[in-house]
């Protein structure tokens, strides 16, 4: 984003719509960036108005990640695409045990998109980034013709600092390790689904979208490198994440259905729609694999944090050359937890 003194008339933030000129590099674009994004993100790096943000970094290892957000609808119970774009990318950094430092945001906006909604989204991002203490320090805006995008798509990237001595990785789970889950599952997917056209149903379920880096910091402080790995079970849900872990580490996972927290409203909605909560997306939960010795202390530390209040020990890592994730059902039988086949719900994040 460039610094600018565009002059001319102010944007009509109440009734105006995004036009192609808002992405063409001229005065209109400067207006859009200034009145919407600078105002919402408000930080010194962005205000410097350069093509990039420059900042000091401490010694050690860094983590970097990027993610695209295309959720539909853009506003859903408990959140919106903007909040999701901040939390989701922060969480990807946090899963390395890292402290997120700064992030970037890139917008692809469809011609005709209401300026008022773009402002709401930007303000929501600003609020989320301030609450998380992670500034949006650089960005980009493009406008595409009507019909070439669906409202707005957002890409965010983030860099973070990994504490010395920590090297979490998906291939580090070992037989005997314990699997912890930070809270109830399926809330985000159900909240988004409840507002989908031709699927809409009434529910009080709110998306769980949240930045997890402070919970992670508390976990790292308690258990340090006894934590083998962490993952946030977003698209594909807990089922996909556990399968990724099993395959990366060449181990099996055994979980107990009774130990997995699912809110009654989420369970009811899944029942209605024929979904398995294990396949439904989360945006504010994490799975941690930890050594058996450190599991109790880590679980206690998670429960002491508001975002981990419902944390539970859901299973353990076992030796298994087939890398199966198996579950003892509450009914008393056994079954595999597989990756989701096909699309359960497109554009969930």
């Amino acid at each position: 984003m460039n610094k600018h003194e565009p002059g001319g008339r102010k944007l009509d933030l109440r009734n105006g719509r995004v036009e192609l000129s808002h992405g063409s590099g001229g005065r209109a674009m400067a207006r859009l960036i200034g009145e919407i994004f600078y105002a919402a993100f408000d930080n010194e790096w962005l205000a410097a108005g350069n093509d990039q943000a420059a900042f000091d970094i401490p010694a050690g290892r860094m983590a970097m990640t990027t993610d695209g957000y295309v959720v539909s609808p853009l506003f859903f119970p408990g959140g919106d695409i903007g909040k999701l774009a901040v939390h989701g990318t922060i969480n990807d950094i946090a899963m390395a045990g890292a402290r997120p430092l700064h992030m970037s945001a890139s917008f692809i906006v469809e011609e005709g998109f209401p300026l008022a909604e773009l402002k709401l989204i930007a303000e929501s991002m600003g609020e989320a980034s301030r609450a998380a203490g992670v500034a949006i320090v650089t960005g980009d805006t493009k406008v595409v013709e009507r019909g070439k995008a669906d409202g707005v798509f957002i890409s965010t990237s983030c860099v973070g600092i990994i504490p010395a001595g920590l090297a979490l990785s998906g291939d580090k789970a070992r037989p005997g390790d314990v699997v912890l889950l930070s809270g109830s599952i399926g809330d985000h997917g159900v909240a988004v689904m409840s507002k989908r056209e031709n699927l809409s149903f009434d529910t009080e379920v709110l998306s769980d979208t949240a930045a997890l880096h402070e919970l992670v910091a508390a976990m790292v402080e308690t258990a340090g490198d006894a934590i083998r790995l962490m993952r946030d079970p977003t698209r594909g849900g807990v089922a996909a994440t556990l399968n990724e872990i099993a395959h990366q580490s060449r181990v099996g996972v055994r979980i107990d259905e009774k130990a997995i927290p699912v809110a009654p409203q989420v369970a009811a909605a899944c029942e209605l729609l024929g979904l398995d909560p294990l396949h439904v997306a989360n945006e504010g939960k994490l799975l941690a694999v930890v050594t058996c010795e450190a599991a109790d202390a880590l679980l206690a530390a998670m429960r002491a944090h508001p975002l981990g209040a419902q944390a539970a020990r859901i299973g353990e890592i076992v030796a298994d050359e087939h890398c199966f994730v198996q579950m003892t059902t509450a009914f008393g039988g056994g079954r595999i937890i597989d990756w989701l086949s096909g699309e359960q719900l497109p554009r969930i994040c």
Partner: protein
Amino acid sequence: MKHVDEYRDGNLARAIAQRIAAEAQSDRQYRFMEFCGGHTHAISRYGIEDLLPENIRLIHGPGCPVCVLPMGRIDDAIRLAAREEVTLCTYADLMRVPASGGSSLMKAKANGADIRMVYSTLDAIAIAEKEPQRQVVFFAIGFETTTPPTALAIRLAQKKGLKNFSIFCNHVLTPAAMQAILDTDNGVEIEGFVGPAHVSTVIGSAPYRRFASDYHKPVVIAGFEPLDVLQAILMLLRQINEGRCEIENQYRRAVTESGNAKAIDEVAEIFDLREAFEWRGLGEIPHSALKLREAYADYDAERRFAMETKPARDNPACECGAILRGQKRPQDCKLFGVACTPETPMGSCMVSSEGSCAAYWAYGRFRQYQNEARKAS
């Protein structure tokens, strides 16, 4: 969750499982077919086989509407959707079913055909209303459970005076297929049926009587919850042990003897029996499917578009047919889990979550290795 959790109670399950284990005679085998894919799914999803003694074998029946639809009908639908003026509305389940030449509705859609996934027949009606310039065709499939909603859509189209709505009718009948299985000597003796749940809410329990009287096979109609299935197995076991042969109704909370009279009447008003219909794996079965009556010919896509089904051959290595007949298990198929997975299905049983192959793949395939390990030790 009230009215759901009660039917999934682990303590009750253990109690019934203990009774089954105590009453199953150890010197003999029991072979029961659960006809419906809904039961197959419940058995796999809740791990019911783990609660049964080894001498009770469940044979997964052909009650999965997607699985029994012959490939030729999918080809028909693809040809139909290729017509410039046609919008084909379908349940999502059908999208990935393999068609001839490696095609599928999904691929046809990617190639530009106007194919839309709907959640109910009413969605298709809404599209027809909203887009009067399009010929909207609903790909109607399913057993007796889904026929009344199709009938409702036709009634609604009639009431609204819609000239651009029709259905491609593939509705099939459960008792006819059960009879075909019993009439065919395929080397698998079925001693009793776990009878359909939702189908029976519509047709009632009476249509199964002939299986007890003429074929001497007990039928226990059961709900789709895991405790329903377990209890039905116990009831079948008792009938066999006591030499009884009856139609019993475990699913009394939803199924009556005479069924849903309103739905039955409405279906009879709009639909007529076909002379015969091809079922995947079971071949041509007489009087096993429905077509629209003459009076409703305007809503019949087969007539409106002069559709003609061309015979199509399944992949020769695919064992879906033998699996649907209960002769083979998914793991007996050479393609299973190798060339054929839910992501790249070669046969229809791998497509629907109610299909035996998909259910075994998604929930039960660890058993294969468990059994091998047991044998090895």
